[in-house]
């Protein structure tokens, strides 16, 4: 498993949840090979159905944007970062963004990925949130780390829940075609000015809605995200300070630092699996989604696998494993059954690349038991010691979809839920979604809300998965962490480039969707020494002849016809 989402989720507030998800996503997506495949609509050979919707066609169905100015952020978004709120939150004077309940009291079942141990279905948090919304939401929480393994079977059945939450990194193989075939067009409820009935949804940025278009229809309720890469090399700053370790500035410096730290006899290793950080520091084109893996390099449409940086990053990671600097548990890959956070807290390893939400999440969870514990994030370095070259992630990667068979009353109730969960920071609705009920799930310490044990247990995942406000980082209990995280995004954002298909939702034709299914598996095999670099070169040349080259032409044509979304 990847950066552990579970811990992030319980500690973090709304905005961050997205990120932890993302981390897992990354892992998975990568595996999948990036794949939203999409299929378009069509049947099996659906070349015609694949593609994307952008420009004028998209404008027709996108919801109108009406900014919300409930609270203005202390740190405005810059370079694609989230907004940061560091000022004191006065719980007594929270604003109300949903003056009257829109829910009609219907029952809505929602299947969603969940990182960690889900609470009971009738827990106090769910009851309180449901009564605020006016809809009886029944959660079907599924393990987020293995969500991709269940999704395909659930969507193939005739009994799909009213709402299914699907992260972009789980849109592998035929899932995109399932989305197009099985979920409802929300255009009739949200396109253009219709969205104004749901003001918090109207305040979701248009680039997030753009990503919610599947098969030419507005289908997803998005969770907006910062487009800066979400994987941060987190490290134990307290141990670094004590031992006098310096944060590395190049691939070589990292390697020698890792050597210095590692001492298996003392049960200490330098790091976890650093593959995703290697991709970032070597400037490899983003692998979070299939379409993001393509961009024009020197005039030629190129897949990330075909770049020398990709192989260099794998080779560096392989050396890290081979030298024995990686904690042995990470050799298990996705078979890793136990949560690494306890080992991180125990100092068994000191550097952990993880979703940015865990920067705060690990601190919030561990600080209570280990007073000296301090986690911080490293700036990404360029492998040669220069500035890094980073590739943008998508501005929304998690979507909630409504079952096509759901009657209008259910769709309206779902939108009522989304309108509450998308409420911005500083409102009662945001507080309920992210912190639960005062007294039960959080208490005020010096005027700052701090989650109780019950809050940490129950207020995790769930409602934040339905739809979210513009990407926000706000941790009233640890404002320094908000500053650290937003600052990191802004510094890294300055080095971030957008690839050709950034921001679009692209469905590949069915016949190409299986091409990269085994790619991430092979990456993981190589870095762990089970396969050789030459196996990857073989894989790439097979990939080209089996359809990679035709897929390249398909993407080139798509770019010629649609242009990019990035402005």
């Amino acid at each position, binding site marked *: 498993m990847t950066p552990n989402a579970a811990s992030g989720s319980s500690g973090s507030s709304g905005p961050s949840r997205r990120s932890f998800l993302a981390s897992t996503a990354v892992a998975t997506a990568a595996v999948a090979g990036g794949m939203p495949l999409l299929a378009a609509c069509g049947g*099996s050979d659906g070349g015609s159905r694949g593609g994307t919707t952008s420009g004028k066609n998209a404008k027709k169905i996108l919801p109108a944007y009406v900014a919300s100015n409930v609270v203005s952020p202390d740190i405005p978004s810059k370079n694609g970062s989230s907004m940061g709120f560091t000022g004191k939150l006065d719980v007594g004077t929270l604003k109300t963004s949903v003056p009257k309940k829109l829910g009609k009291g219907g029952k809505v079942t929602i299947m969603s990925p969940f990182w960690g141990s889900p609470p009971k279905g009738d827990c106090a948090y769910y009851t309180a949130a449901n009564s605020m919304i006016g809809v009886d939401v029944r959660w079907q929480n599924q393990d987020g780390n293995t969500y991709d393994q269940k999704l395909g079977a659930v969507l*193939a059945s005739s009994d799909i829940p009213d709402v299914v939450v699907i992260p972009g990194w789980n849109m592998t193989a035929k899932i995109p075609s399932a989305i197009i075939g099985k979920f409802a067009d929300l255009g009739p409820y949200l396109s253009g000015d219709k969205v104004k009935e749901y003001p918090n949804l109207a305040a979701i940025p248009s680039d997030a809605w753009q990503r919610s278009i599947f098969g030419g229809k507005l289908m997803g309720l998005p969770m907006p995200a910062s487009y800066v890469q979400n994987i941060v090399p987190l490290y134990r700053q307290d141990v670094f300070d004590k031992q006098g370790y310096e944060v590395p500035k190049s691939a070589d410096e990292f390697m020698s630092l890792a050597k210095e730290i590692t001492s298996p006899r003392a049960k200490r*290793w330098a790091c976890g699996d650093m593959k995703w950080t290697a991709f970032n520091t070597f400037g490899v084109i983003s692998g979070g989604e299939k379409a993001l893996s393509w961009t024009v390099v020197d005039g030629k449409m190129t897949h990330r696998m075909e770049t020398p940086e990709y192989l260099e990053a794998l080779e560096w990671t392989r050396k890290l494993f081979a030298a024995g600097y990686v*904690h042995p548990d990470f*050799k*298990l890959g996705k078979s890793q059954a136990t949560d690494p956070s306890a080992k991180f807290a125990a100092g068994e390893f000191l550097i952990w690349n993880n979703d940015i939400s865990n920067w705060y999440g690990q601190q919030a969870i561990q600080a209570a038991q280990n007073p000296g514990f301090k986690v911080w994030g490293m700036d990404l370095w360029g492998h040669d010691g220069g500035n890094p070259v980073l590739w943008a992630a998508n501005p929304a990667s998690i979507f909630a979809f409504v079952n096509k068979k759901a009657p209008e009353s259910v769709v309206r109730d779902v939108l009522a839920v989304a309108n509450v969960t998308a409420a911005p920071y500083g409102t009662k609705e945001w507080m309920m979604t992210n912190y639960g009920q005062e007294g039960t799930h959080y208490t005020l310490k010096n005027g700052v809300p701090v989650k109780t044990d019950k809050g940490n247990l129950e207020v995790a995942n769930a409602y934040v998965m339905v739809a979210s406000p513009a990407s926000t980082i706000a941790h009233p209990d640890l404002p320094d962490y908000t500053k650290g995280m937003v600052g990191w995004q802004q510094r890294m954002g300055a080095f971030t480039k957008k690839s050709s298909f950034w921001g679009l939702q692209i469905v590949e034709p*069915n016949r190409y969707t299986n091409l990269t299914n085994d790619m991430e598996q092979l990456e993981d095999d190589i870095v762990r020494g089970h396969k050789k670099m030459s196996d990857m070169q073989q894989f790439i040349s097979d990939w080209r002849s089996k359809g990679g080259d035709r897929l390249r032409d398909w993407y080139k044509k798509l770019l010629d016809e649609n242009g990019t979304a990035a402005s």
Partner: protein
Amino acid sequence: MSHSTVPRRAEASTPVQNPVASGGATGPREKNEPGRPSLRLRFRRDRTLLLMTVPAIVLVLVFNYLPILGNVVAFQDYDPYVSDNGIVSILHSPWVGLENFQQIFQDSAFWNAVRNTLVLFFVQLLLYFPIPIVLALLINSVVRPRVRAISQAILYLPHFFSWVLVIAVFQQLFGGAGLLSQLLRQHGFDGLDIMTDPATFKFLVTAQSVWKDAGWGIIVFLAALASVPPDLYEAAAMDGAGRWRRMWHVTLPALRPVIALLLVLRVGDALTVGFEQILLQRDAVGPGAGEVLDTFVWWNGVRNQDFSYAAAAGLVKGVVSIGLVLAANKVAHLMGEQGVYKK
């Protein structure tokens, strides 16, 4: 409908199989024998018994035979998402004939899975299969009932642990940062890489199976041992046979039919070497060593939603397995044993 099908089917196959009502027939090998009561009579006579088999037959039909029809997707490019109804989806999916099979036979990942499956089967046959027999002999030689009951309980217990638990325990003990490795390191040796070494994965998996299930496997052998008449041992002892000769000439011959039967069953099941256990550890060693046929089917079908491809692979496995059962059964007959069935 099952009322009528059962007897009719039975009759149709009389030359091979004995019909339900064979008890009353004297020379039941030939069709329409004069001494045999008519179908109607037999039906009336046995209707209560037949009625009692109906629920079982319905269950078998619905859960074992009906789903077999779904194998048709192996010959299609099946897309489960074109409709909410699986049958409609099948009707709407294009027919591709043997294309999936052609692809499978050219797929190196498939042959890799076949190879791993067979290697694992032989390793388990050699290292796992004999162990329950030896354990059963050991337990059988324990005289004091209390000791016997306790050792049996200890041997059976791991069978009731889930695979997740078994593997977690192995990881804690033998993992790269586990008890054993750290102990070695503290004494100046290198740590071991038992859980993530592809080269020794087959032995790791076999060791886990032995630890978990070998105890449970002795039950059948114990039952067979219990049925050996004690006077045989007495007679052999009187004739001067020692412990080993008694085991060789009395005990083992008594176990032979059971061993042969289990061996036939095991060979027929050769392509099934464990699913959950291997899936849980597949990523730890990579599919090069950790992919077997069942996980191959799972990966392609459930994980990649390529249900047609997975169904085709599953069918190939099924057909080969039937061949193996028939062959193993034949061998058992040649050795003079009963086997699974007899004509």
